């Protein structure tokens, strides 16, 4: 599986080259174009797994694209403007913010982690996926805006709306950004993720919810 990302950073497009018989698993709706010899199959991976994924802010179903009788290609893009990155699988794996996930090698196991009671009501989509693989493999993630790779050495605090992915070596907990709830609410910072340990973190330079509320309130009202 060969991933090339073009049209970076604003309107990035990933071209995934597949050998004969090779597959790539993608988030539903991410496919833009593909060779005619690529077959798509839709799987939910079981009802419970699918439902859990849906609560994770993703779609219930995932698609597997397989090149038949020769090499082929599939083009993927996220729906909002922004950059993409390819994460090479490591023994520890990654945590991926659920809406950032685009595609992965078929040997990568993707599990939905519900971040607890607090994050459920946060409305910031702090549902995370845990990506692990026994061997080499890749994950393709998409951001809203640019992507910055940060190093956490010790502790770091990041707005949940700006998270894309991080090394699973890091411990994380979601909480409020100031000591009191009222101050947290008024600060406009909402929820943050507290990281502890050593590892890399990929952030997106724009926050989709902030963008949505900035532009959304200028639009005519919708029927309730």
């Amino acid at each position, binding site marked *: 599986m060969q991933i090339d990302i*073009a049209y970076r950073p604003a*309107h990035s497009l990933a071209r995934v080259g597949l050998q004969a018989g090779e597959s790539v698993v993608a988030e539903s709706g991410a496919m833009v174009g593909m060779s005619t010899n690529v077959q*798509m199959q839709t799987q939910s991976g079981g009802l419970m797994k699918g439902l859990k994924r849906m609560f994770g802010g993703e779609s219930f179903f995932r698609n597997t694209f397989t090149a038949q009788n020769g090499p082929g290609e599939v083009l993927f893009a996220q*729906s*909002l*403007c922004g950059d993409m990155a390819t994460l090479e699988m490591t023994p520890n794996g990654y945590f991926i913010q659920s809406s950032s996930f685009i595609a992965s090698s078929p040997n990568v196991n993707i599990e939905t982690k519900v971040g607890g009671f607090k994050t459920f009501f946060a409305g910031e989509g702090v549902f995370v996926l845990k990506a692990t693989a026994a061997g080499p493999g890749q994950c393709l993630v998409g951001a809203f805006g640019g992507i910055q790779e940060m190093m956490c050495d010790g502790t770091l605090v990041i707005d949940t709306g700006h998270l894309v992915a991080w090394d699973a070596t890091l411990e994380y907990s979601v909480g409020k950004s100031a000591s009191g709830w009222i101050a947290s609410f008024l600060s406009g910072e909402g929820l943050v993720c507290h990281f502890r340990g050593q590892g890399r973190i990929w952030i997106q330079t724009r926050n989709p919810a902030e963008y*949505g509320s900035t532009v959304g309130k200028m639009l*005519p009202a919708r029927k*309730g």
Partner: protein
Amino acid sequence: MRYEMLDKPDFGMVRVTFDQAGEQMLCESGAMVSRDSAIEMQTNMQGGLLAAAKRKMLGGESLFQNTFTAQAPGQTLWLAPGPEGDVEVLEMNGTMPVFLQSGAWMASAPSVTLDTKWGGAKGFFSGAGLFLLKCEGHGPLFFNCYGGMHAVDVGQAGYICDTSHIVGFTAGLDYRVTKVGGLKSLFFSGEGLVCEFRGQGRLWISTRNAASLATFLHPFRPVERRG
């Protein structure tokens, strides 16, 4: 007439320089950014009311188009599309018509004719919303899309493209609207309908589509109070 493509790929723009008086450019209404003062603008319905209405209804283009005519040599005209994204130019040579998805046409030389081609039942009833503008003739043709513009040279093997990402294609290609995967995929894959292209030619794909942005923004709209 000369032209320069500027600020590609994210915010594409075109600077047209007219070498001689009398040279013209036909533009989508609203595409003009700026012009030298010795350029005259005329607003008209190309091909008459019926052709313009057909273009408006089926092709997604404006009812009116503007014709810019240089009154002196060396005049410049600046053009830009509405959405952010790329602008491409194709130098038409009279042999290869181009089909553009509704809304993709931005400007062309007056020697390029624009006609809304009835996409046939396949485009109309499939729900793909595929209305095509047939561009034919000589001279530059400028078209734009939301997002980046990715060109695919389609050969014997053909190519599949999501219907909402098609910008345009050359006349050597034929397409059919189809679904990918099985029946389960049609409803649950999120991929909806695709176009399968066959033949020889070039296909332009946009790397984003504005409808997805609108879908994302919809829940953020204020909610109308009842009663």
